[in-house]
C-alpha cells in the first residue's frame, strides 16, 4: 500500500503488498542501536532500528529512565530527520540579505570562505568583533568554546541567563555548588517552583507521580493551574514575577518560627544571625500584596517545607526569568534549603560537584588559550558580573581550590547576549561585526525580538548553523546544515556541572551534507589556522571516548562500547560529603552572607527588588497596562521555538493560544478562540484566546516561541515568517536596568500588559508594530540611549577586600575568607604542615616541586613524568625495576654470597650483571627482566619450573638437585 503524500508517514517504508503500516524490526539486516533523544534536555532513551544505513524505526527504550516513554517530539524523530524543510547542504547567500536566494556549495568550501572572512575581521577589528550565539543544549558546546578561545574572542553566549545559570552561580556562592540533584526517594516534601514537568520533563513527572502515591508531598508554585499543579498537594498561585518576595517571606517564616535545622545552622552556616536580622522585614504580611497570596498560605508552605525534612526544591526556569529579582529569588531559595539542613543530605538536594573521575566539559574547552586582555573585553562583563568573567573567575578559582575541578566557561561565563545584539546595532562598546549563530533562533528566543531582528539584519557577517531555515537563518550569509537526533552520538553531561554521564550512539551517519556542530567548529578552527594538535578528534565518538577514558571502565575500548555495555556512569552515591571536608565555599561553610557576591559588589544576602513593572512600584504603568502577563513557560507539544514545521504536531496546535480567565474575558468582550492583541510598553502581538480559569482574573499566560515556518519568509522582511507577530519576546525588555543586576537575565514573567480583541480594521500586523528601539519602547523607535549610558537596576556596593596580615609568598594566592594560601596554577592549599593538598584526591604534594607524596613507597612522585624521588627530592634510580641506592651503604641485609656495589647502589653476584631484588630474593637481568637464583645465578625457567645453568644447559630443581632428563 502506498502511503499518500499528505500522510505523516514516510514513503517507501511499507511493503506494497501489505496493508500493514508496521515496520518489521525482525527482518534480516536490521540492527538495533541504543541512541538518545535529542529534542530537549531530558534525553530519553531511544532504540533505533537501522537497515542499510537508514533508520527504519525508533522506539522508546524500555530499559532506560524513560521506561519506553517518548513525548510528541521524541516520537517524531524519524520525521525530523527526513523533513523536507531541513537544511541539507551548505548555503551561500547569492541575493540580497533576506531575499532567500541561495547557492548550494560544498561544506568544506563554505567553511574555508567563512574562515577567511573571520580571519580578515579579526585582523581588522580584533577577535572580539566575532561573536557567537547559542541556544539550549543541542550541541557540544565545549567545541564552540574551544574554537572561540583559540580564535581569541570572549563573546560567546547562549540563552543561559534565562535557564539555570544565574541560579547556579548564586547557589554556588552560598554553598559551593548548585544543590540540583534531588534525592526524591528519601524526601518527604518536594517543591516544584516555577517548574511544570507535566509539560516539560515528562520522565520526571512520572517519578513525581509515583513518589506522591507513596506519600511524598508536592507543593507547586505556579501562577497558572498547570498540568503539574493539577496533581499537587498544595498549590501556591502567586502573582507572576513575585517569586523572590515569596521566597524571602518563606525564608522569614522558617527563621522566625524557629523551623530551621539548628544543629546544621550552628555547625555549618556562617553569618546566620546577620541573615536573621536581614530578613526580619520580609514578613508574609509584607509579601502578601506583592504575591497576591494570603500570609497564611505563605506560612503554610514554609512550614510544610521546613517541617517535612529532608525535602527537595526542584529548580525551575522561572527563577531565572523574573528579571531584576531573578538571582535574589534563587539566592533566597538557596538559603531556605540551607537553613533547613537539606543540602547534600540523603533525601535532600544533592550537590554532585564536577566530574572528578572523567574529563569535565571545562577540561575540553582550552580556556587557557584566551588571553586575559581578551577576557576583559567580554561584552556585558562590566555590568552583569556573576555570569561573566569577573564572577566566573572567582567562582571557578574557588571551585578548583575546593573540588579540584571547575565549571565550564560555556554557559557559566558568557557575554551578555542582548548587549551583543545592541553592540551590533550601536557599535557600543565596540562594533561586533560577525556573528556565528549555532542552534538558536534568537529572534524568538532572546528578549526584545524587534531589536534582535534588527541586529541580525544589520550584522555585517552572519553565519547560521541550524536544522531549519529560521527567520535568523534567512538573513545569514552562510547557512550550514546541522546533523541532529539519530545522526550524531549524544553525551549528557548536564552542562558539565555534575559527576554523572549518560550516552547514546549515533544511529546513522549524517544525511546529505549535514555535519555535527563539533565537526563544524573543528573544521572552522582548522580552516582559520588553529593548531591541528588542538583538534585531535575527528568524530564525536573519539572525543567522547577521550572524556570517558579516565573512568577506566572494563571492556570499554571506544565510546560505542561505553554505550553498549554501560550507557551511563554514576559515581557511587556520595552524600554528606561536606561533613568530611566542609562546604566548597571560600570559608568552607554555607555563607549566609556570601563573600563572593559581596566581593563582586552585590549584596551578600538576598535583598528585595521588585519586578520592572508592577502595581505597587509603578502604578502609572499599571494604569495603562493593568493586566499581568506571564510567558516563557514550556508547553506541549513544542520546545522553545522548535517543531512548528512538524506537521503531525502542528496539526494538534496550529495557532498560538493565550490563557485568560473567563471573568476578564467577559469584561473585555473576548470569546474563546478570538484573535486578540497583547500589548506592553514595548510592542504588541496577537494570539487567540483560550478562555479558561487556569489563571488569575488579572493575569494572562502567553506561550513562547511562535513563528510560522510555512510562510514565505522573504515576502515580509519586517516580520519574516511572522516571527514577530505572535512572539512574546516582542513584549519583553532587555534594557540594562530591567535586567538582573547580577546575572543579567531579563523578565518573561510579571510584565504589565493590556489585552484587546483584534478589530476589523486592526487585525493585521503592521510595519509600525515591527519598529525596534533601544531602550525598548513602542513610542520612541530607534536608538535613543546608547547602551553604555544605561544604568543598572542596582548600583554596585563598594567592597574592600581585607589585606593579608603577612606577606603572601611568591606563587601563592591568599584567600581572605579562610586566611589560607593556595598555590597559583594548581590551586592546591598550603597546609599548616607545609605540604600542598590536592582538593580532588586529598593527597599531599611537595610545596617546592608539586610532586605527590606516595605514602606506600615513602617517596615523591612526579605524576607528569612518572618519575619517583626520595623525600630529599633526589631522583630514585631503578635498575631492572629494582630501586637502587647509589653511593649509599646497603639499606637492607645483603645475602652472604652477594656483594654490595656502592657505586651502582645494588647487590651483585660475582661478576654477573644481575641486580639483586631484596623484595623477592631473586636476581634480575636488567636486559630482559629474567629471574636468576641468588646462589648460582641460574636462570629460572617458568615453563618447567626448573633452574637452568646456562653455561652447561643442565636443569636443577628449586633445591638445586640436578634433574635427570
Amino acid at each position, binding site marked *: *500500500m502506498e*502511503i*499518500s503524500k*499528505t*500522510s*505523516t*508517514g514516510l514513503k517507501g*517504508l*511499507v511493503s506494497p503488498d501489505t*496493508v*500493514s*503500516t*508496521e515496520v*518489521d524490526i*525482525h527482518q534480516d539486516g536490521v540492527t538495533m542501536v541504543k541512541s538518545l533523544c535529542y529534542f530537549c534536555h531530558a534525553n530519553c532513551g531511544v532504540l533505533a532500528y537501522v537497515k542499510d544505513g537508514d533508520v527504519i*524505526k525508533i*522506539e*522508546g527504550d*524500555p530499559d532506560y529512565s*524513560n521506561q*519506553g*516513554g*517518548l*513525548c*510528541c517530539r521524541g*516520537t*517524531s524523530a*524519524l520525521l525530523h530527520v527526513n523533513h523536507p524543510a531541513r537544511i541539507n547542504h551548505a548555503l551561500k547567500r547569492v541575493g540580497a540579505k533576506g531575499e532567500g536566494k541561495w547557492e548550494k556549495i560544498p561544506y568544506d568550501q563554505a567553511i574555508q570562505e567563512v574562515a577567511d572572512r573571520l580571519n580578515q575581521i579579526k585582523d581588522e577589528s580584533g577577535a572580539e568583533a566575532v561573536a557567537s550565539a547559542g541556544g539550549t543544549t543541542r550541541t557540544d558546546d565545549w567545541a564552540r568554546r574551544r574554537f572561540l578561545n583559540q580564535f581569541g574572542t570572549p563573546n560567546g553566549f547562549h540563552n543561559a541567563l534565562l535557564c539555570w545559570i544565574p541560579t547556579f552561580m548564586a547557589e554556588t556562592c552560598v554553598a559551593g555548588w548548585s544543590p540540583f540533584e534531588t534525592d526524591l526517594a528519601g524526601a518527604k516534601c518536594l517543591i516544584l517552583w516555577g517548574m511544570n514537568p*507535566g*509539560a516539560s520533563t*515528562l*520522565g520526571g*513527572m*512520572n517519578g513525581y*507521580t509515583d513518589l*506522591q*502515591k507513596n506519600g511524598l508531598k508536592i507543593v507547586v508554585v505556579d501562577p497558572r*493551574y498547570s*498540568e*503539574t499543579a*493539577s*496533581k499537587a*498537594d498544595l498549590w501556591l*498561585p502567586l502573582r507572576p514575577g513575585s517569586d523572590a518576595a515569596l521566597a524571602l517571606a518563606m525564608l522569614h517564616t522558617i527563621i522566625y518560627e524557629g523551623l530551621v535545622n539548628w544543629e546544621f545552622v550552628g555547625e555549618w552556616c556562617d553569618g546566620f544571625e546577620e541573615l536573621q536580622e536581614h530578613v526580619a522585614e520580609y514578613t508574609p504580611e509584607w509579601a502578601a500584596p506583592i504575591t497576591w497570596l494570603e500570609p497564611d498560605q505563605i506560612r503554610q508552605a514554609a512550614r510544610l517545607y521546613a517541617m517535612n525534612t529532608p525535602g527537595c526544591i526542584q529548580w525551575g526556569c522561572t527563577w531565572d526569568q523574573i528579571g531584576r529579582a531573578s538571582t535574589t529569588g534563587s539566592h533566597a531559595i538557596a538559603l531556605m534549603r540551607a537553613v533547613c539542613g537539606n543540602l547534600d543530605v540523603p533525601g535532600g538536594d544533592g550537590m554532585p560537584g564536577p566530574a572528578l573521575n572523567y574529563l569535565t566539559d571545562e577540561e575540553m574547552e582550552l580556556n587557557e588559550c584566551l588571553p586575559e586582555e581578551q577576557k576583559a573585553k567580554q561584552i556585558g562583563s562590566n555590568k552583569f558580573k556573576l555570569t561573566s568573567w569577573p564572577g566566573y573567575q572567582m567562582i571557578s578559582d574557588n571551585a578548583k581550590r575546593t573540588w579540584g575541578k571547575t565549571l565550564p566557561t560555556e554557559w557559566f561565563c558568557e557575554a551578555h547576549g542582548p548587549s551583543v545584539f545592541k553592540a551590533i546595532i550601536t557599535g557600543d562598546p565596540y562594533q561586533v561585526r560577525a556573528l556565528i549563530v549555532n542552534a538558536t533562533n534568537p529572534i524568538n528566543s532572546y528578549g526584545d525580538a524587534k531589536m534582535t531582528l534588527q541586529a541580525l539584519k544589520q550584522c555585517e557577517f552572519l553565519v547560521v548553523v541550524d536544522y531549519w531555515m529560521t527567520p535568523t537563518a534567512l538573513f545569514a550569509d552562510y547557512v550550514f546544515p546541522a546533523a541532529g537526533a539519530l545522526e550524531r552520538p549524544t553525551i549528557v553531561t548536564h552542562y558539565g556541572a555534575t559527576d554523572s554521564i549518560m550516552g547514546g550512539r549515533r544511529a546513522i551517519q549524517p544525511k546529505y551534507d549535514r555535519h555535527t556542530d563539533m565537526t563544524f567548529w573543528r573544521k572552522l578552527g582548522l580552516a582559520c589556522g588553529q593548531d591541528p594538535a588542538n583538534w585531535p578528534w575527528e568524530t564525536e565518538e573519539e572525543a567522547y571516548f577521550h572524556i570517558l577514558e579516565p573512568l577506566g571502565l572494563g571492556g570499554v575500548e571506544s565510546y560505542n562500547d561505553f554505550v553498549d555495555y554501560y550507557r551511563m556512569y554514576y559515581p557511587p552515591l556520595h552524600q554528606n560529603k561536606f561533613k568530611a571536608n566542609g562546604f566548597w565555599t571560600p570559608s568552607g561553610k554555607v555563607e549566609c552572607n556570601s563573600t563572593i557576591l559581596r566581593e563582586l559588589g552585590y549584596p551578600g544576602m538576598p535583598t528585595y527588588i521588585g519586578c520592572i513593572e508592577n502595581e505597587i512600584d509603578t502604578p502609572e504603568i499599571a494604569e495603562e497596562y493593568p493586566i499581568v502577563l506571564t510567558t516563557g513557560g514550556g508547553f*506541549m*507539544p513544542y520546545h522553545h521555538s522548535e517543531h512548528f514545521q512538524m*506537521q*503531525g*504536531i502542528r*496539526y*494538534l496546535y496550529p495557532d498560538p493560544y493565550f490563557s485568560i*480567565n473567563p*471573568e476578564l474575558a467577559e469584561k473585555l468582550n473576548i470569546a474563546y478562540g478570538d484573535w486578540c492583541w497583547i500589548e506592553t510598553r514595548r510592542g504588541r502581538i496577537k494570539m487567540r484566546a*483560550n478562555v*479558561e*480559569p*487556569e*489563571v*488569575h*482574573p488579572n493575569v494572562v499566560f502567553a506561550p513562547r516561541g511562535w513563528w510560522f515556518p510555512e510562510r514565505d519568509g522573504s515576502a515580509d522582511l519586517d516580520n519574516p515568517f511572522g516571527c514577530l507577530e505572535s512572539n512574546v519576546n516582542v513584549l519583553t525588555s532587555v534594557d540594562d536596568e530591567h535586567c538582573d543586576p547580577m546575572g543579567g537575565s531579563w523578565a518573561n514573567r510579571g510584565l504589565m500588559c493590556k489585552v484587546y480583541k483584534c478589530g476589523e480594521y486592526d487585525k493585521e500586523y503592521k510595519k509600525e508594530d515591527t519598529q525596534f528601539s533601544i531602550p525598548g519602547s513602542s513610542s520612541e523607535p530607534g536608538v535613543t540611549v546608547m547602551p553604555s549610558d544605561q544604568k543598572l537596576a542596582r548600583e554596585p556596593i563598594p567592597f574592600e577586600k581585607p589585606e593579608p596580615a603577612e606577606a603572601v609568598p611568591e606563587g601563592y594566592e591568599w584567600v581572605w575568607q579562610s586566611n589560607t594560601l593556595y598555590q597559583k596554577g594548581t590551586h592546591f592549599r598550603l597546609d599548616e604542615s607545609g605540604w600542598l593538598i590536592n582538593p580532588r584526591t586529598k593527597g599531599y604534594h611537595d610545596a617546592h616541586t608539586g610532586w605527590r607524596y606516595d605514602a606506600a613507597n615513602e617517596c615523591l612522585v612526579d605524576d607528569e613524568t612518572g618519575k619517583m624521588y626520595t623525600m630529599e627530592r633526589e631522583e630514585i634510580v631503578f635498575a631492572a625495576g629494582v630501586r637502587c641506592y647509589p653511593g649509599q651503604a646497603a639499606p637492607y641485609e645483603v645475602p652472604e654470597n652477594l656483594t654490595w656495589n656502592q657505586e651502582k647502589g645494588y647487590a651483585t653476584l660475582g661478576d654477573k650483571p644481575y641486580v639483586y631484588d631484596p623484595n623477592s630474593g631473586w636476581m634480575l637481568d636488567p636486559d630482559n627482566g629474567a629471574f636468576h637464583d641468588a646462589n648460582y645465578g641460574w636462570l629460572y625457567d617458568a615453563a618447567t619450573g626448573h633452574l637452568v645453568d646456562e653455561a652447561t644447559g643442565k636443569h636443577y630443581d628449586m633445591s638445586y638437585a640436578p634433574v635427570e632428563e
Partner: protein
Amino acid sequence: MTRYVMVIDQRRCIGCHSCTVACRTWNKLPLDIVYNPVVTEGAQGTWPNVHKSWQPLLCMHCENPECVPCCPSGASQQDEDGTVWVDPKKCLSCKVCVNACPYGMRDASHLEDRMHRYVRKCTFCRDKRQLDPSAQPYCVLTCHQKARIFGDLDDPNSEVSKLIGSVKTERLFEEFGTEPQIYYIPDLGGKA
C-alpha cells in the same frame, strides 16, 4: 480466550499528547486522522478553586460495536480478542460505520486521494501485535505517565483485570449498550 481492553488512569494523565502523536507517527496516519485525542474541558471551577483533568479517547473496542453490523462490505469487523478494525482492502468508505460510532472514533482522511479513501480507526495496534503477539500498542508504550494500561481482561492475573477488579472505573456512554472496553479511572482531584 483473550479479551483486550485498556484501562486509562486519568489521575496520572497530564495531557501531553504523546499518545496522540506516537499513534499517528507510528501508524503513519494522514494528518487529519487522530485515533486517540486527549480532550479536556479545561480548568473547571472558579479561580483559584479549580480542577482540570484530561480524558484520552480512542476506539472503545466495544463488546457490542455499533460499527460492525452496519458495514455493508464486511470491512468493519471484530477479532475474537475484541479488536475492532477495518480492512482497507474491503472498505468502500460509505461512512455508515463512522456515523454509527457514538464516540466519533472513526473517519476517512480528507487529505488522501478522493478515490482512494477508507475508514480508519484505532486497532489497538493490530498490525504490531500480528508481528509480535506480546506487543503493546504504541500509545501505551510511549506514555511517560503510564496512564494507559493494556491487557487481557480474561486473564485474572493481568494488570487490567486487577485494576478493574479493585478500583472504581467508568466507561463512556454505557447507555448506548455498546459495552465499551476502555475503562477510565477518573481524576476527581485526588491522588493516583
